[in-house]
């Protein structure tokens, strides 16, 4: 018997309920959190009637339309809903899974994992329709024609054929760096590699270093520009054709950013505010109440930008919003990473256990 199988016997150990002790210790620092199970009482008839009146009144005042926290499972917008969930194979990870959407589904890998899975949205349920074994992967990107992976040993591979990886370029070891990958203007853009803070790799393998670029925390691309968000909220707009910085702006703390044909969407102010930058650097505040989470994630379908916290997905456009609100429930203990295609919003929970698709019903 393998050690791992023997260690599985540890699951037979009884675990004490520590919630009371945790509450006691947390209470010593005056943090009022009630971890112990709350008693659930059946509401009285009078209370039910009173609650009903309150709900009716709230509808009348339009209060519910502005409520960001409806009950899990509630779909505020009739056109978008949870279309499916699927449990992913493999062990859990402490890192957010890597996601790369294309028109037929979503590529998923664990950071430094050696397996790639494609979750398809065809048919009535989500299913894994492709599974590839790869070298340890640190970043993923895809479009309808290509799948690129960046490996820990620094190779950019094109897996378009699915079976014969083509090495597009070599960038030096990425094992100890946090590399980012984006697609813009037909080139693959890599941030944080030993070849330079930001480099563009052409299909023929030629590599162009973007002069003067800071190392990005977020790198995202559209058809004409690559956008880099560095530490301290420095946003660089990079012309995709010339691989040079056309604008630089200082925005302060940026929680997440995503590019689409209209420009760059940013979650700022600790995730409370949604802002938009166009290609000329013009800045607009679109929404000021994204929710409560401090680590909002963004994804764009091209027509709508979606924000996600651990419980609620919301869609906005340049005129504001939310245009759609979908409650995804409590599937995640932390904010899920999300990715968008014109057909839907994909999310993966923080442990990489579950992939969810939210799409028009």
């Amino acid at each position, binding site marked *: 018997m393998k*050690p*791992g199988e*023997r*260690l*599985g*016997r*540890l*699951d*037979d*150990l*009884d*675990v*004490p309920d*520590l*919630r009371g*002790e*945790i509450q006691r*210790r*947390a209470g*010593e*620092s005056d*943090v009022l*959190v*009630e*971890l112990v199970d709350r008693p659930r009482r059946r509401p009285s008839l009078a209370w039910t009637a009173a609650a009903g009146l309150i709900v009716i009144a709230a509808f009348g005042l339009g209060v519910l339309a502005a409520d960001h926290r409806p009950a899990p499972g509630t779909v505020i917008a009739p056109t978008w809903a949870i279309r499916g969930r699927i449990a992913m194979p493999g*062990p*859990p*990870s*402490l*890192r*957010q899974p890597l996601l790369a959407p294309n028109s037929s589904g979503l590529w998923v890998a*664990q*950071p*430094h*994992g050696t397996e790639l899975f494609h979750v398809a949205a065809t048919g009535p349920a989500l299913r894994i329709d492709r599974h590839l074994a790869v070298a340890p992967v640190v970043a993923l990107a895809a479009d309808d024609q290509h799948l690129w992976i960046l490996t820990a040993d620094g190779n950019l591979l094109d897996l378009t054929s699915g079976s014969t990886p083509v090495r597009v370029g070599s960038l030096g070891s990425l*094992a100890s760096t946090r590399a980012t990958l984006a697609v813009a203007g037909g080139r693959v853009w890599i941030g944080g590699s030993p070849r330079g803070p930001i480099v563009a790799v052409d299909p023929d393998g030629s590599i162009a270093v973007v002069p003067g670029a800071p190392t990005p925390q977020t790198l995202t691309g559209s058809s004409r520009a690559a956008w880099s968000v560095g530490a301290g909220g420095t946003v660089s707009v990079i012309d995709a054709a010339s691989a040079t910085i056309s604008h630089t702006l200082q925005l302060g703390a940026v929680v997440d950013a995503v590019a689409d044909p209209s420009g760059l969407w940013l979650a700022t102010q*600790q995730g409370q505010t949604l802002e938009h930058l166009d290609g000329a650097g013009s800045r607009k505040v679109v929404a000021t109440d994204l929710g*409560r*989470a*401090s*680590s909002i994630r963004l994804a764009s379908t091209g027509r709508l930008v979606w924000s996600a*916290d*651990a*419980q609620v997905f919301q869609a906005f456009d340049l005129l504001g919003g939310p245009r759609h609100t979908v409650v995804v429930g*409590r599937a*995640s*203990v*932390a*904010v899920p990473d999300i990715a968008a295609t014109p057909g839907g919003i994909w999310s993966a929970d*923080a*442990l990489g256990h579950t992939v969810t698709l939210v799409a028009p019903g």
Partner: protein
Amino acid sequence: MPGDQDVIEQTYRVHAARLWRAIRAYSGDPDVASDAVAEAFAQLLRRGDEVRDPGAWVWRTAFRIASGDLKRRRAFVPDDRGDQRVARPDPEIVDLLRALGQLSSMQRMAVVLHDYAGFPARDAAEVAGSTEAAIRVHLMRGRRRLRTLLDE
């Protein structure tokens, strides 16, 4: 958002049991496990929104608390009290815990995090505050030693 009560509760439900058993196996002492897990979650509550990924944070913190506790005691504490709730301790688990106690601290941590908790070597290294290469070496040696001890 970690400061959110629902998220804390969910984090507890997802991680607490596996974390407690992992530290129980690492430390050999149910009291060390209970103290480390309770303190880690209490600190998570105190820190609130500062913690972006509560699951990863609570694993790192609990193992550091347990590791510090073991260093103060300077020894693995073979203790079968984790099974005191059952009338007759499972001899296989008792043997397993005793065998784990004969590994070095890092070997034990690597084996428990990788082979029990199911973390890849890179994540196990993050929890252990070590490097992936070092964890792989400890894992290989720990597995070999554990196999020998359990087969004796």
